[in-house]
């Protein structure tokens, strides 16, 4: 996180406008010294020195805040924030794509955390107009995900704790990498959606995690975060393993693929090398490393024992 010296002059003016716009609903309670920083997504944002009332706009952020032991500072999160279980009890501000600005404002937060991938830019702009700063996270690699944790820690005044958490996570990731070193790397198709087939792009933290878990993501030449991939190309690239995220809305019965034209000809389907991985593989949060370890266990079983995640 790059820090930029305080710029208080613009702040006051903005507050006046915000007050005019928003009435008395949402005057930020930050009265201590604010600071102007560049967030992980590259936006410049005024944040209070020590935010006490925080709203999270994505499940991974909620998890990071709880992992830092700052759950009591979280005054609101989204309908999708389901971990830890306490997060479900927090007041919800709506969905990730379309959160309710009014609900956010009514919670009187002094800082909102969002992500560049899941949330919309408009949400950040509108919040800014209401005088509520939004700190944006953006994770495109495993390292970015770790940086997100450190950023949230720094912003909330728990930088040291964040770094010690990240240190522990990195050690676990390194242990995985050491264990699988030199082993043959299976080719992995990650199925984000199959009707039509959508996979993860090559420049995503998800692909990075697959690589770190000792696999080769089957997405060379695919641009964007969630690109479509033709089944024909899958057949040509012949994955050794097919992975599905285990989520509520998308958990197809794997047996079905043995009957679908095209799919049923894939060796990975015939030999049933299809596995569910925890949804946290799609969440840049501390549990990303849990997913990394589980995935490594699937791709490189310890001493040949069958993996538990197999279905």
């Amino acid at each position, binding site marked *: 996180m790059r820090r930029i010296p305080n710029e208080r002059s613009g702040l006051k003016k903005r507050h006046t406008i915000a007050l005019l716009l928003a009435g008395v609903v949402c005057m930020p309670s930050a009265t201590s010294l604010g600071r102007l920083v560049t967030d992980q997504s590259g936006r410049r944002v005024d944040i209070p020195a020590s935010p006490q009332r925080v709203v999270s706009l994505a499940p991974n952020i909620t998890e990071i805040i709880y992992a830092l032991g700052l759950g009591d500072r979280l005054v609101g999160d989204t309908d999708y924030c389901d971990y830890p279980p306490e997060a479900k009890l927090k007041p919800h501000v709506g969905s990730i794509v379309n959160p309710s600005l009014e609900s956010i404002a009514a919670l009187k937060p002094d800082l909102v955390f969002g992500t560049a991938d899941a949330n919309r830019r408009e949400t950040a702009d509108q919040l800014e107009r209401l005088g509520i700063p939004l700190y944006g996270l953006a994770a495109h690699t495993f390292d970015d995900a770790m940086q997100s944790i450190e950023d949230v820690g720094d912003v909330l005044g728990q930088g040291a704790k964040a770094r010690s958490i990240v240190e522990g996570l990195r050690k676990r990731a390194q242990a995985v990498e050491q264990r699988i070193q030199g082993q043959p790397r299976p080719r992995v198709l990650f199925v984000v959606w*199959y009707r039509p087939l959508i996979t993860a792009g090559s420049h995503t933290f998800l692909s990075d995690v697959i690589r770190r878990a000792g696999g080769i993501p089957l997405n060379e030449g695919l641009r964007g975060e969630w690109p479509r991939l033709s089944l024909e190309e899958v*057949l040509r690239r012949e994955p050794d393993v097919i992975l599905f995220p285990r989520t509520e*809305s998308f958990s197809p019965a794997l047996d079905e693929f043995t*009957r679908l034209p*095209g799919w049923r*000809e894939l060796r990975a389907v015939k030999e049933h090398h299809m596995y569910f991985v925890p949804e946290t593989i799609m969440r840049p949060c501390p549990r990303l490393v849990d997913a990394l370890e589980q995935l490594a266990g699937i791709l490189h079983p310890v001493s040949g024992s069958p993996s538990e995640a197999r279905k």
Partner: protein
Amino acid sequence: MSVPATRRNLLLTIVLLSVGLVVVSLAALMVGGVHLPLRQVWVGLWGAGPAGQAEVIVREIRLPRVLLAMLVGAALASSGTALQALLRNPLADPYVLGISSGAALGAIVALWVGGRVANASPLAAFAGALVTMVWVFALGRRAGRLSSYTLLLAGVVTASFLSAVIIFVLSMLSTRDVRGTAFWLMGDLSVVTDVQLHLLLPVIALGIGGLYFFAKDLNVLLLGEQESAHLGVNVTRVETLVYILASLLTGVAVSVSGAIGYLGLLVPHLGRMVVGSDHRMLIPTAALGGAIMLVVSDLLARTLVAPGELPVGAVTAVAGAPVFIYLLRRTTG
């Protein structure tokens, strides 16, 4: 220009278009991520024995898609043709009566409630189409008989209402689900089961055959409801049955392929330019023409951004809108 509907002309049209369909289908089987020579396609189609990768690509991936594109294209184009006559509106297409929105909503609700079964969404989509069909039909009746004017209005209002509900449900889904669903809504021919193909063929063939059965009545219907009644056509019966057939064709097509736009609007107009507006010529022409168009569109959708794919509905819309505007300028200018 109008081609008289003699048996000879009809046969000639069907043969010519069928040859065209075979040619584009073979092309679609050859072209893709890997280009396969005709010989290999042939072996893939008919060859016995152990299948290599090329044969598998032909038989398992390209052939089901080509067959599905044919069936869906034929269904949408003939449904559009019939609805343009039924509603006496050149802007009518298979979606104007809200059936595709009903199907889409059915699929999305199934997803929302829990999309655990792959085959649940086509079934739910078809259920959505059926409910919408009955609902619009009930609204479209006035004083005990079907009014094409009321039917059109009922359809348009229902379509926009359902679209609003779809947007509402989409806003409740997570980002990833929205993306997956949106792609499906834009038309997708990539997933079809054997069972679906086997069911689609007789249903769509019967539907188009049924519409063809009413071809003469549709010609008369174009003159106006009162005139048709004077000419001895049982207007309510014809309108009701044509409505049911056209809606069923659309519902079946949408439930397996999402909403593929412009085809049902454009192909009937192209057909009219070639064979005129006698439905005995127009319906077979549109059915085969629709099949050709969708096979070609899907070929483009598969190959333009390979190894990725485009939604086939985006291809038909991007190609269809300019063609439609061109036709419009030509006929009015």
